């Protein structure tokens, strides 16, 4: 089980007080066919759950939330609400939108605290479904399949369920307890769990399909790829996800030094930046403050991190260097000592905007720790081994989320096509739900 986990200081977002909840819940207009609901990928009936908070029915409120979104507790903390529900709030034009995410957190936190049982398993159908991957998409599919009465086994490669919610988001944005509580909701519905099993390595896909009537592929993506420059093998060079995971599990990342560089500009980069800054600050008693800097080969406008994440990073004292790409990592005694960067500029061509190095603009920055956060690799080999058709590691699915293998469906990060928007927990949850519905139809048809 999880080791005691450091919270690393103040949460990114503090919970609302009772007074704030009362004012905010009663300010909600209870719109009909509300825009906030329609803006949510999982279609949470926001007006209803807020009306229930106002009426003192917190358990009912939590049920409305979790019914639509099995990841409702995580999403209350990590969703880009300003782009989703709150961005659609009718108040946004002339006033501040209702703080929907915070109200959602209030209601779900109450259910977590009170141990409210929100759902029951459906009457057994006799069908069995294997879920490959216990992250947000897999758990959501498993939850709904259990409510429909299908027997479910989740195969999880890691020790704990929850996927990136458990391992990949810094604790001050998403505490591990929240991610594990969501997983526990699914387990309590009778989902069987086999952890430390990697399908395709420990268990062949054919064997799996011989045993189960259907399967959901929800294995996400791989680790952060290499940048492809000299020096990446040096001590002090991290994969951002491994870095965050060690921090989250309280396993320590050693001394980071006084100059920390994060390469990349997505939400995981922001997480790596803010948590290394907090670690360095905690460790750096006596010495000067560590400088934590983001290096990005494009500009501020091209950053894929959410605006509110970027703002948060600024407030945490992160420095930003745009239009520079690492050329090589310089080591000394097997450890990182510096990075040589080159300035870039954006060039527009038919293929879109590309960051092109400008020769002669090289500069060297003394660096003690480097964190790669340039996205995640695709599980190309895995899908090849599983015999699942894919496009460069993106699993090919039809409109019902069925893969090219009949009875095998896919959801979550493993089907997020390149160039589309940021993979969000809420999208993964919705796809998990959709996969469950499709499988239910498939099984009831008598496959």
């Amino acid at each position, binding site marked *: 089980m999880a080791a005691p986990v450091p919270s690393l200081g103040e949460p990114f977002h503090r919970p609302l007080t*009772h007074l704030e909840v009362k004012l905010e819940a009663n300010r909600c207009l209870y719109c009909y066919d509300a825009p906030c609901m329609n803006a949510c990928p999982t279609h949470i009936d926001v007006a209803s759950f807020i009306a229930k908070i106002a*009426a003192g029915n917190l*358990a009912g409120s939590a049920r409305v939330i979790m019914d639509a979104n099995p990841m409702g507790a995580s999403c209350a903390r990590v969703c880009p609400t300003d782009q989703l529900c709150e961005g659609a709030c009718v108040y946004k034009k002339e006033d501040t939108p209702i703080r929907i995410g915070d109200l959602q957190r209030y209601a779900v936190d109450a259910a977590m605290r009170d141990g409210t049982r929100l759902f029951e398993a459906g009457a057994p159908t006799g069908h069995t479904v294997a879920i490959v991957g216990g992250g947000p998409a897999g758990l959501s599919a498993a939850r709904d399949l259990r409510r429909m009465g299908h027997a479910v086994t989740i195969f999880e490669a890691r020790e704990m369920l929850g996927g990136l919610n458990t391992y990949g988001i810094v604790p001050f944005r998403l505490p591990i307890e929240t991610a594990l509580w969501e997983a526990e909701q699914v387990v309590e519905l009778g989902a069987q769990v086999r952890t430390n099993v990697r399908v395709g390595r420990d268990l062949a896909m054919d064997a799996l399909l011989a045993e189960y009537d259907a399967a959901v592929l929800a294995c996400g993506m791989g680790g952060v790829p290499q940048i492809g420059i000299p020096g990446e093998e040096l001590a002090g060079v991290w994969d951002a996800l491994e870095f965050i995971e060690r921090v989250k599990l309280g396993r320590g990342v050693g001394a980071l030094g006084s100059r920390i560089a994060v390469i990349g500009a997505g939400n995981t980069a922001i997480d790596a930046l803010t948590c290394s800054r907090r670690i360095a600050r905690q460790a750096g008693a006596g010495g000067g403050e560590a400088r934590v800097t983001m290096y990005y080969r494009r500009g501020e406008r091209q950053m894929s991190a959410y605006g509110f994440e970027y703002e948060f990073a600024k407030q945490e004292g992160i420095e930003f260097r745009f239009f520079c790409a690492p050329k090589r990592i310089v080591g000394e005694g097997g450890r990182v000592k510096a990075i040589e960067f080159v300035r870039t500029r954006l060039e527009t061509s038919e293929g879109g905007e590309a960051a092109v190095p400008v020769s002669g603009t090289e500069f060297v920055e003394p660096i003690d720790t480097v964190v790669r956060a340039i996205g995640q690799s695709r599980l190309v080999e895995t899908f090849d081994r599983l015999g699942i058709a894919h496009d460069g590691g993106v699993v090919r699915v039809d409109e019902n989320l069925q893969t090219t293998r009949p009875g095998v469906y896919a959801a979550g990060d493993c089907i997020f096509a390149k160039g589309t928007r940021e993979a969000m927990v809420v999208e993964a949850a919705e796809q998990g739900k959709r996969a469950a519905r499709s499988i239910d139809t498939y099984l009831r048809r008598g496959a």
Partner: protein
Amino acid sequence: MADLRSNLAGIASPNPFWLASAPPTNSGYQVMRAFEAGWGGVVWKTLGTPIVNVTSRFAGMNYKQNKMVAMNNIELITDRPLDENLSEIAKCKRAFPDRAIVASLMEVCERDAWRELVKRVQEVDIDGFELNFGCPHGMSERGMGAAVGQHPDLIARVTEWVVEASRVPVVVKLTPNVTDIRFPARAAARGGAHAVSMINTINSIMGVDVETWNPIPHVDGKSSHGGYCGPAVKPIALNMVNDCARDPEVGIPISGIGGVETWQDVVEFLLLGASNVQVCTAVMHHGFRIVEELADGLNRYLDARGIESVAEIVGGAANRITTWNNLNLNYKIVARIDQSACIHCNKCYIACEDAAHQCIDRVRQPGGSTNLVVDEGHCVGCNLCSMVCPVDECIEMVRVDTGRPAQSWKERAAAMGEVG
């Protein structure tokens, strides 16, 4: 899940939530939508000789940012032909046989007219009648509605005519525009009514536009008094329901109406003696969908208390209401202010200082801040400070032991009489 089934004088419904006879029950289309949403019963918009309505009919009472804490209306009964209404009632009943459909009726005070109306309406499969002796506007000028409800002898007489002709239970809907609701309720019981429902709307003028001097709402510059309803009338309704629930001469079930919007409102009406509730304004404000939360909230409330059926709570607190002279004079509470929750708006201070008993002190602290501290010796426990406080958990009214046994005014007067 608790058993929410309800029964009002033989009229069964799957839950105690009915729609009151009002604009939301004007047509089959609306009633179908209401049943789909989960309402247990409806009282159809009053049937009678179709009338002609005016335009501009409703007005809302807002309190600061809160819209429609009450509303009033000058709309009359149905303006559609009886046959049309009856065919729609029949369709709704066929589509939702488990729900209650009660027909609200209004007629001139003539026996044959009432008998004829009852006869025609009960040709369709209705579950009960509700006699509209409550509408305070328009129809009352023609000797109907509240004009009947304000004369107990007329109530008893018309009720008798209807009960005589009816094959289904008869509910009498009462106007609150009387001095003592028990008298019309007793008259209904004398006339053979199987239940009473209350309250219909209260005489009201919503306001005057200070720029144009037009009344609100106005019809071409003029208005008449309208019927007032919504959350603001709930306390009046609760009192009337309870008055009737405790009166042995009334002795028939009560359908509670007046400002019901939340499941807590429902519980309050039931505890004080109503067997079910009827809702209108909340639906006019938010739509039929509110019934989902009424049912969910009530269910969870009952489950949390291990109460198996909603019927068990009917009248549960009815006898907690008594006369003033039975109240314990030696019960004492005082205000306690939680300094950590206080946001220093000083509303409690000024309320106590100017409108109560001057027992909250502003005590300067070493750091320069000010704490609000209750002088418990002088606090009379009136509640005002806790009422004006914007923070729910900040001011608590705490019981203090007076060291004296319970004694009511009645007992005290008797004791003093013995001494004297």
